[in-house]
C-alpha cells in the first residue's frame, strides 16, 4: 500500500516536471480537453440557468393555474383554422364561468393589447398591456416594489390606472419615483399606482410580467377595443397542485355549459397549463444539450487522440529513462502508473483551464440567466479530464511498461 503511495507521488513529481519542461506542448495538447470541459460546464450552467428561470417564472405567475382560451397554446391536434373559427370568449362568458365554477380560489379575465407608452422624457414603442380585473392579483404570486394592484372599484369603473412591470418601470422612470406619476398609453393619460418586483422570468417570453403593464380590462375595451386579440383569456387558480385536475374537469364542464354546447359538439375552447411551457423550454434545453454533448464528445475525442499521440512521443523520448528505472527496480505496474499519471495530470491541467474559461463564460451568461457554476459540474469536469487522461494514456503507458530493459538501456 505504501509502495503504491510512493509510486503515485513519484509519478506526480515526474509528471509535473515533464509538463514544466514542455509547457507549450502540454497546453497545446490539452486544447481538446480544454474545449470539451468548457463546453460541458457551460452547457450544464446554461441549462441550470434556464431551469431556475423557468421555475421562478412559473412561480411568479402561479404554478397551479389554468388558462381558458380560444387558442390552445402549445402543440395541439386541433387545426389552426378550426381554432380561428371558434367564437371569442367574452366578458359575459367570464362572468357566467365565475358564478358557476366552485373549485377555483380565484379567477380573472385577461386581454392583451400592444401599445406604445410614453412619459415626458421616455417612451417605449411596444409594450404588452394586460387588461384584467382586481381579481388578477389573486391568481398570481406577483409582489410589489411599491404601490398596489388596482382595486375592485377601479377595475369595475374602468379607471385609467396602471401597474408597471419592473423592467418597464426602469425604462420609463430610470430615476425612480414612478408612483403617482402619469404615463400616456396611446395618448391616454394613466396614473401609475404600483410597480412590481422583478420576477426574473425571461423564459416566459411574452408572459414575463417584468415586461408588461396591467390596466383594468374595462379601460382596455374603452380605449383599445379593436387592438386586442378579440378573445379574452380566463385565468383560473386551483387551491393546490393536487386540485389542478379536478379544477380542470370542472372548468371543462362549466365552459361547455356557458358556451351552450350539446353532447355531440366538441369543445370550442382550450384549457391551457403552464406545464405546456415546459415542453417548449425542453426543446430549447434539448438543442443546447445536443450541441453541448456533440462539442464535448468531439473535442474530448480529438483531445484524447492528441494526448495519446504526445504520450507515445514522450515514451519514445524517454526510452532510456524507462530502461534506467527498470534496471533499478521499477516493475511494469510502476511504469504503467507513471505514464498514466502523467497523461491524467496533463488532462487535469486542461480540465482546469477549461473550467477557468467556463467560469468566465458563466459570468457572461449570468447577465441573462440567474445562475452560477455548480459544484457538480466542477466535479464532472475533473472526472471527465482524469478519465480521458487514463483512457488515452493507457496504450502509450502499456508500451512503456512492457519495454525490455536491456533494449531500453541501449537506446540512445
Amino acid at each position: 500500500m505504501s509502495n503504491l503511495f510512493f509510486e503515485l507521488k513519484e509519478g506526480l513529481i515526474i509528471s509535473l516536471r515533464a509538463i514544466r519542461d514542455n509547457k507549450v506542448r502540454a497546453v497545446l495538447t490539452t486544447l481538446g480537453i480544454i474545449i470539451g470541459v468548457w463546453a460541458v460546464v457551460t452547457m450544464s450552467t446554461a441549462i441550470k440557468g434556464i431551469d431556475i428561470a423557468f421555475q421562478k417564472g412559473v412561480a411568479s405567475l402561479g404554478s397551479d393555474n389554468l388558462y381558458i382560451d380560444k387558442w390552445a397554446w402549445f402543440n395541439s391536434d386541433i387545426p389552426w383554422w378550426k381554432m380561428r373559427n371558434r367564437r371569442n370568449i367574452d366578458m359575459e362568458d367570464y362572468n357566467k364561468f365565475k358564478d358557476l365554477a366552485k373549485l377555483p380560489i380565484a379567477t380573472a379575465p385577461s386581454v392583451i393589447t400592444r401599445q406604445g407608452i410614453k412619459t415626458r422624457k421616455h417612451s417605449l414603442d411596444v409594450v404588452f398591456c394586460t387588461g384584467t380585473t382586481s381579481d388578477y392579483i389573486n391568481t398570481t404570486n406577483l409582489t410589489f416594489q411599491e404601490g398596489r394592484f388596482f382595486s375592485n372599484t377601479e377595475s369595475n369603473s374602468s379607471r385609467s390606472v396602471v401597474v408597471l412591470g419592473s423592467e418597464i418601470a426602469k425604462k420609463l422612470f430610470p430615476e425612480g419615483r414612478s408612483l403617482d406619476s402619469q404615463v400616456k398609453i396611446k395618448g391616454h393619460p394613466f396614473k401609475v399606482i404600483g410597480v412590481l418586483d422583478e420576477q426574473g422570468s425571461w423564459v416566459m417570453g411574452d408572459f414575463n410580467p417584468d415586461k408588461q403593464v396591467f390596466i383594468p380590462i374595462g379601460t382596455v375595451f374603452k380605449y383599445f377595443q379593436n387592438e386586442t386579440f378579440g378573445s379574452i383569456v380566463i385565468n383560473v387558480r386551483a387551491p393546490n397542485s393536487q386540485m389542478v385536475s379536478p379544477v380542470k374537469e370542472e372548468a371543462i364542464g362549466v365552459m361547455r355549459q356557458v358556451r351552450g354546447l350539446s353532447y355531440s359538439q366538441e369543445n370550442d375552447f382550450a384549457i391551457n397549463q403552464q406545464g405546456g411551457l415546459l415542453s417548449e423550454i425542453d426543446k430549447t434545453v434539448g438543442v443546447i444539450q445536443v450541441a453541448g454533448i456533440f462539442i464535448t464528445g468531439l473535442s474530448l475525442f480529438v483531445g484524447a487522440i492528441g494526448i495519446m499521440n504526445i504520450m507515445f512521443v514522450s515514451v519514445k523520448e524517454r526510452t532510456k529513462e524507462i530502461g534506467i528505472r527498470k534496471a533499478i527496480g521499477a516493475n511494469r505496474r510502476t511504469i504503467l502508473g507513471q505514464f498514466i499519471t502523467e497523461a491524467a495530470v496533463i488532462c487535469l491541467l486542461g480540465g482546469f483551464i477549461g473550467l477557468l474559461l467556463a467560469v468566465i463564460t458563466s459570468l457572461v451568461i449570468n447577465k441573462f440567466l440567474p445562475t452560477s457554476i455548480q459544484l457538480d459540474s466542477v466535479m464532472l469536469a475533473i472526472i471527465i479530464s482524469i478519465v480521458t487522461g487514463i483512457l488515452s494514456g493507457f496504450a502509450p503507458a502499456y508500451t512503456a511498461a512492457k519495454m525490455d530493459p536491456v533494449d531500453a538501456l541501449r537506446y540512445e
Partner: protein
Amino acid sequence: MSVINLEHIAKIYQLGSEEVKALKDISLNIEQNEYVAIMGPSGSGKSTLMNIIGCLDTPSKGSYIFTGVNVSEMDDNELAEIRNKEIGFVFQTFNLLPRSNALHNVELPLIYAGVPTSERRERAKQALENVGLADRIYHKPNELSGGQRQRVAIARALVTQPSIILADEPTGNLDTKTGEDIMALFNDLFKLGNTIILVTHEEYIAEHAARIIRLRDGLIEKDENVTKRVIPDHNGSI
C-alpha cells in the same frame, strides 16, 4: 555462501532465420565478497552474460541460482524486485536521470522498494556521503563532473545494500586519473565486504580484481585467480 551459481547457461537470439548463440555453455560460481572481472573482446558474450547475471535478461537454457533463489524462470516483475533489492548497477554511461538531482537519483531505488520518506532521505544522503559527495547532493547530473556522476551512480547502486555490485565498464567514459579514483572506490567497497563483478575489456582495470574470467565466443576461455597486487588507498598510502 555462493551468491551466483550459473549452470550450463546458454543464450540464443533469433535474428531472422539465423540463430545467434551469444552464450553457449557457461557455468560459474561466485562467492560472497569476491571481486571478479569478466573480460573478453566484443562479441565474446560478456554483455549478454552481464545482463543475465544482472537479472535484466533470462537465459535460454540452464539454471541461474542467485542467493539461493532460482531466477532463470522468473517473470518481469519478479526480476524487477530482485534487481531493486539485490543488485546494484554501475554503468559506463552512468545512466542517471538527467532532470533529477543527485539525492533523488540515489533515492529512486528506495522509492521503488517502498522505504518511507524520512528513512529514504537519510539513507540516500548517507550513501552520497560515503562516496564523497556530501556537498553535491542537490546538484543535477549536468552540474557534476564525469567522476562525480559515476560516484552518484555508485551511491545509487549501494543505497539498497545489494548482494552484488555489477559494474559495466565503469571507467569507460572517464579519464585515466578519474578512472583510477573510481577503481579505488571499488577497492574500498570490496574491503568493506561487498561482492563486486566488473565487466571490462581493459586489462589494467581487470587487474584490480582478484579473479578474472575470460570469455571467448560464448564460452569461458579462462577462469583464474590472480595474485592480488597491493593497491594504494585513496590517499596514496599503503
